[in-house]
């Protein structure tokens, strides 16, 4: 597996972001807002906030495999082992007085002036932010977005639009400035371009061989998450897209001798991202697409209609939907990326992003005639992941798909 050369630009982009965040927190160059990963980031940027994303902070601890050091500290506060391990690792790290951003001079996550959540993804983010609100005495604001939506209706959009507009006054007060329309439109343009370019990057994986995998995507999506509304994100994705298109043209695959193609639903297992990437490559299997990476390829962001278009985009997200639209979405992905099977990660501490618990894998197999596999694990808590069991599960699935293909071609050649 050869690494994408854009990784250097990715590092520089993320580095600049963390540096500006540290500057805001330590040298007070800008007010600091914390935001959930699919919250109203454009609004915060337009108001001049430096925006910190606790989920990103937690994911770094997951990837660095330090999360398990912090989890018990949050559990001891009464935050259960069964709830979001992003939340428990992040709060645990705070209690330990540590942060993975130490290299930027931050001993702890950058001190916030305001915390802004959106319940479109889960309730955990609200409980998470409210813990900090109590601990640090800072205001906690949020969007109380509906969940498990069938079709997004005008009245859903009205409700979230009104809530977004209602955030402006209290946020202006914290920021000490008025919201400027031109800045909001500029943030929306950057966000729309980021979403479009990121989406285009992911779509290159429909090529055979795929130039990137879900594991690459989980790393390269950083700017799409933390730099929404900033011009640095589209700049990075132009670089990445050019490299991916070049790979497609030269038929360079992310996985050497790609044989099988899979779709991944659910969270990554951050502490095993590289191990899983290597294992799938060993099986000449490319995990070409995922619900997770696609979640930041928002559609329909419109600078001319900032409020309603953001409201719609946040409501239309996969995670906020009911089973039927989720299944239709996966069906479209399976067809577009032409995959041989679907892996569903049953993330022990995140029921919101585990689509395994109400029968979906079975229904997908039945409707699409495509094999599915349920993999037990967790986003950050490695105690919920067994390397041996995962290997047997995945290897067994690869054997099954390979044998099925051999049987089909044997029938065809007869």
């Amino acid at each position, binding site marked *: 597996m050869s690494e994408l050369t854009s990784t250097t630009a990715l590092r520089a982009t993320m580095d600049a972001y963390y540096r500006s965040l540290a500057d805001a927190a330590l040298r007070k160059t800008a007010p600091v807002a914390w935001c959930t990963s699919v919250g109203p980031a454009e609004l915060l940027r337009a108001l001049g906030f430096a925006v910190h994303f606790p989920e990103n902070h937690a994911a770094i601890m997951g990837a660095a495999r330090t999360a398990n050091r912090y989890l018990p500290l949050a559990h001891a506060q009464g935050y259960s082992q069964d709830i979001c391990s992003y939340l428990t690792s992040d709060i645990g790290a705070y209690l330990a007085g540590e942060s993975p951003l130490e290299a930027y001079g931050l001993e702890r996550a950058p001190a916030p002036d305001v915390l802004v959540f959106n319940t479109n993804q889960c309730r955990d983010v609200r409980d998470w932010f409210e813990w900090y609100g109590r601990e640090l005495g800072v205001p906690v604001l949020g969007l109380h977005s509906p969940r498990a939506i069938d079709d997004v209706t005008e009245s859903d959009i009205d409700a979230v639009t009104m809530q977004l507009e209602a955030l402006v006054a209290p946020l202006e007060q914290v920021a000490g400035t008025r919201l400027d329309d031109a800045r909001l439109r500029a943030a929306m343009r950057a966000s729309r371009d980021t979403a479009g370019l990121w989406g285009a990057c992911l779509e290159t994986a429909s090529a055979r061989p795929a130039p990137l995998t879900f594991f690459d995507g989980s790393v390269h999506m950083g700017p799409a998450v933390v730099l929404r509304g900033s011009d640095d994100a589209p700049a990075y994705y132009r670089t990445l897209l050019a490299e991916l298109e070049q790979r497609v043209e030269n038929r360079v695959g992310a996985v050497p001798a790609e044989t099988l193609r899979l779709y991944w639903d659910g969270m990554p297992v951050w502490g095993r991202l590289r191990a899983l990437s290597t294992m799938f490559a060993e099986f000449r299997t490319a995990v070409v697409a995922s619900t997770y990476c696609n979640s930041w390829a928002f559609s329909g962001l419109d600078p001319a209609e900032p409020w309603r278009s953001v409201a719609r985009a946040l409501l239309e997200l996969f995670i906020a939907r009911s089973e039927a639209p989720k299944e239709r979405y996966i069906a479209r992905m399976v067809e577009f990326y032409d995959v041989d099977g679907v892996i569903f990660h049953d993330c022990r501490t995140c029921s919101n992003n585990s689509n395994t618990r109400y029968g979906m894998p079975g229904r997908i197999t039945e409707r699409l005639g495509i094999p599915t596999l349920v993999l037990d694990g967790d986003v950050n808590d490695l105690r919920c992941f067994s390397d041996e069991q995962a290997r*047997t599960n995945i290897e*067994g699935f690869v054997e099954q798909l390979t044998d099925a293909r051999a049987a089909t071609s044997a029938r065809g050649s007869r």
Partner: protein
Amino acid sequence: MNYYAGVDSGSWTTKAAVIDGEGHVLGTAVTRSGADLTAAAERAYEMVLANSGRTRADIEAVWSTGFGRNTIPFADGSRTELDCHGRGVAHYIKGPLVVVDIGGQDAKVIRLDAAGHRLSHRMNRKCAAGTGSFLDEIALRLGIDIGDLNALGRGATENLELSSFCTVFAGTELLTLIRSGKRPADLAMAAYRSLVKRIVAMDVLEGRIAPTGGVVAYHPIMVELIGAACRGEVVVPPHPQEIGAFGAALAALAACETQDIADTSDTAELVQP
């Protein structure tokens, strides 16, 4: 005649089998895995060679399977236990069928189509409930040898329930029942029923069901209880504990046959003008 071998390196026991080119079993062996899986595999292989009256030189290929499949230096290839259990059972029993393998430390449900090809599989979470170690824990609490649990369960007269989800809690629940004067035979049977409940919750068990694994081999009561709990016909394949090793031997045989075809087609290509 060519011979083939399979070694199933499980977390609890290591099994081995030797077959001939027609898939007939010449011998099997079982040994404790212990901490050194490689040594256990060596031991099992030596034992099965002795049991089948063969030497290493007689064996065309050895394939490995199971938890420790990648720790066996003398293996020529490997397949997962999901593949080998399915393969082994499908050799004896016509599909479509559902293989229910209950091992010492895990349980699996494997679905096969009419041709014996795998359709899907499910593995239990990493938890002792629903596996053979649950029965070990119960035998320990009852103060009897695990080998006597089946006979004890046969004497049950009262229909007791163990309601706990977890092996440790079931153990303490058992102690409470013992103190309240319940009979060990009824408790043994309650433990079997509890295990079966976990197994039938793993997947829909219908049609032809083939239980395999050490638990089935040593606890025939389990087969009866699975039969009673499912809508289907329960068929136990020969040597259910060594079925994975047998499947690995079949995989070795299949690989050699494919190799032979590849070899002859290479030759055919060479003689083409």
